[in-house]
């Protein structure tokens, strides 16, 4: 089949689905709507696979121009798609995991009467995400970039009757928008510099440029990335975004949308390579995010919030990798993270489904006997994210840690602490949910096949995902890295100069400490019948962490309240007390002028005659004078 047509079909199929479902949302049943949406996503997945099969990495990639979009003066921005290793990787993730989550949603959303709308929005999201990864220039990516933001807003606020959910949705959108400001700035700057926004052209032309503008451009891009990928300081929206249905959390807020920032950085790796200063900033922001989010995760009691902070933390790891210049490691972690985090979220969704909507882990426990498939798959997800040997997370995270050690042992130590915290909170979650005695009062029941099937597939992927980029150490040859190299030039600059002994030692230390953490977690949480949960009893520092470092409160005090104050007072003071009176002054001036002239109209004939005489005399005098 024609490759161009296939490429166009990949985003077109979900878009079609979105349009059809949105217009027929009142007439379709959940199953029909879900079936259609899933089928279209699967179709897109098949197309992606076909594209992948027909793709020749040595050619570097192809651009499929669909339409002239914006053409003004010397600005030519076509609506074009780019098929290369990087976009193919992301397409496979998006459509593959997307199909599974669509399938899962059929079961999950079965009770909801607005399920067709849900599927329409999910399909629209997939379209936007595919535009994001397939765009051949920054502006097309930006279509997807904003599009996923919109869909994220819609899906977080899907249950619109709860005001908090709406607030969370707005927060997500606005924070993303703040990031978008950076993205637009980067785009106008790059356009000014290169006269085009095509990735291929810019990346070719960029080599050799090394100036403050490049640092500015990459910093702006990174600001965009922090918004979408929930990095400090724009990370607080992601935990709140858990207000959406769980499949949404899995697809948007774990597997795909939040990795857009990483994708964008890898896409423009050439630029980032030219701006070491930006790379350092990315590195430290990534590290800080990884640690802070992980620390918050230790104390969360909402099953989805734990996973959300875990996601933020893992995204931090990916940015660390980007900061270190190891783009392949970042993409590798994106891929494996997509597998196991989607798995964990879907597992959590299955738990919530089993308990009829309960999300508080203090009211769970002992579920492993009731929902076996969910337990098994969730267990696999947990050990994968914790990085137990030979799991997918093990390879990807260790690759990042190895790069970090190469840079600085301190960085390695920090990341290790983060990894240990990850292990701890994930196993805490696992033990509290599935071990011990059931503390709630619902009747747990296993989810239908449409939900468990994706779990099983993802579990398998979480286990074997590491094979995609098996390092030399284990007899592989870093397949993914080599595949991606044709698309992202930055990858060719990567170098890891650690001896095998060092690598083995690092792995050993990590694994040993992880095992210790699991043991501690088991001891503390596995057999709990009740749970201490009162924040007031905690020591100050612990309480601070449990209250998420009070970042939300800080932002509220720093931005939201002053903004509302400003809005109210600009209107009541600046507008009504200053601007309006000034305008009224013009009217008043006209009025009093008229009033003054009115007085001249005395109505007495003699006065008018006199005025006429005076005018005549004045006129004559002026005429005489001027002569």
């Amino acid at each position, binding site marked *: 089949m024609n490759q161009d047509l296939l490429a166009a079909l990949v985003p077109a199929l979900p878009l079609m689905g979105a349009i059809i479902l949105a217009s027929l949302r009142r007439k379709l049943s959940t199953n029909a709507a879900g079936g259609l949406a899933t089928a279209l996503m699967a179709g897109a997945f098949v197309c992606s696979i076909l594209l992948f099969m027909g793709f020749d990495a040595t050619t570097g990639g192809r651009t499929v121009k669909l339409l002239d979009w914006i053409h003004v003066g010397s600005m030519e921005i076509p609506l074009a798609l780019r098929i290369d290793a990087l976009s193919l990787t992301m397409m496979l993730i998006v459509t593959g995991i997307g199909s599974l989550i669509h399938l899962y949603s059929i079961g999950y959303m079965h009770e909801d009467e607005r399920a067709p709308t849900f599927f329409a929005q999910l399909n629209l999201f997939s379209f936007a995400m595919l535009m994001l990864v397939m765009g051949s220039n920054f502006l097309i990516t930006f279509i997807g970039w904003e599009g996923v933001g919109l869909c994220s807003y819609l899906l977080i606020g899907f249950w619109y009757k709860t005001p908090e959910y709406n607030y969370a949705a707005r927060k997500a959108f606005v924070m993303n928008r703040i990031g978008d400001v950076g993205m637009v700035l980067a785009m106008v700057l790059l356009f000014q510099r290169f006269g085009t926004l095509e990735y291929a052209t810019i990346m070719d032309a960029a080599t050799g440029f090394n100036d403050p503008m490049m640092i500015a451009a990459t910093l702006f891009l990174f600001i965009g990335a922090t918004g979408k990928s929930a990095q400090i300081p724009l990370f607080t929206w992601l935990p709140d975004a858990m207000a959406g249905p769980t499949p949404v959390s899995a697809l948007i807020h774990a597997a795909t949308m939040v990795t857009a920032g990483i994708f964008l950085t890898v896409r423009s790796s050439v630029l980032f390579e030219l701006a070491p200063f930006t790379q350092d900033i990315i590195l430290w922001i990534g590290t800080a995010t990884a640690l802070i989010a992980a620390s918050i995760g230790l104390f969360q009691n909402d099953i989805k919030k734990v996973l959300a902070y875990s996601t933020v933390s893992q995204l931090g790891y990916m940015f660390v990798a980007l900061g270190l210049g190891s783009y392949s490691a970042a993409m590798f972690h994106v891929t494996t993270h997509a597998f196991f985090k989607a798995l964990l979220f879907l597992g959590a969704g299955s738990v919530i489904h089993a308990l009829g909507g309960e999300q508080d882990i203090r009211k769970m426990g002992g579920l492993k006997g009731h929902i076996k498939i969910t337990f098994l798959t969730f267990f696999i997800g947990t050990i994968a994210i914790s990085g137990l040997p030979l799991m997918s997370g093990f390879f990807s995270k260790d690759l990042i840690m190895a790069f970090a050690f190469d840079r600085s042992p301190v960085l390695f130590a920090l990341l290790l602490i983060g990894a240990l915290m990850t292990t701890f909170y994930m196993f805490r979650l696992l033990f509290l949910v599935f071990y011990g005695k059931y503390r709630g009062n619902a009747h747990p029941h296993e989810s239908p096949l449409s939900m468990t099937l994706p779990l099983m597939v993802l579990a398998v992927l979480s286990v074997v995902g590491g094979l995609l980029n098996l390092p030399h150490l284990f007899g592989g040859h870093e397949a993914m890295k080599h595949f991606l190299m044709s698309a992202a030039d930055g990858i060719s600059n990567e170098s890891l100069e650690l001896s095998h002994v060092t690598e083995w030692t690092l792995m050993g230390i990590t694994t040993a400490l992880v095992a210790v953490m699991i043991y501690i977690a088991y001891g503390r949480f596995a057999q709990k019948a009740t749970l201490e949960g009162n924040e007031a009893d905690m020591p100050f520092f612990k309480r601070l962490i449990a209250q998420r470092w009070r970042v939300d409160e800080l932002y509220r005090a720093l931005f939201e309240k002053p903004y509302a104050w400003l809005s109210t007072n600009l209107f009541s003071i600046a507008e009504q007390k200053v601007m309006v009176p000034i305008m009224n002054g013009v009217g008043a001036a006209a009025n009093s002028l008229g009033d003054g002239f009115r007085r001249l109209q005395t109505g007495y004939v*003699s006065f008018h005659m*006199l005025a006429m005489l005076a005018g005549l005399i004045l006129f*004559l005098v002026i005429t005489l004078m001027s002569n």
Partner: protein
Amino acid sequence: MLALFYILAALSVVSALIVVSARNPINSVIALVVCFLSIAGHYILLNAQFLAMVHVIVYTGAIMVLFLFVIMLLNLNTATEPMKSLGMRVAAVTGGGLLFITLAAAIRHGVTISATNDFDPGVGLVKTVGHVLFTEFLLPFEVSSVLFLSAIVGVVMLAKKETPSPHPLSDGEGLTPAELERRR
């Protein structure tokens, strides 16, 4: 000749002053008649025979009689007119004086006048003026009859007795503004 001019000029200025200053309207009218007659004298001096005739007939003969009629009709022949405020009177004299000074200054300094046509003493004869009037100005002449027609219609309209209706200037109690002012 010059002396004749000066006499006529003095006569017209003095009678004009009397027009303005006389307390009794009848005296004003008489003074105005004298003034007009002296102006007719000026016309004769200028050899504008046609104008002199018309002037005496129209102004002195018709218009002034009309004035007299009205004064008689309205019984205005007594000096009942209240004087204006002192300021207004001073302003009137100053204004008139200034106007004259300015105009005089204008021709003293500004304008030099030289005749444009060859001298022809006969321009004011009935023959000459009549010729121009009935050739070049025939249409305006005919149209002026329309003016008179409309003046007649207007006068009839104005002078007709109205059906009694509440007067726009009165306060509703049947008092005219004049009475109102008197009461104030």
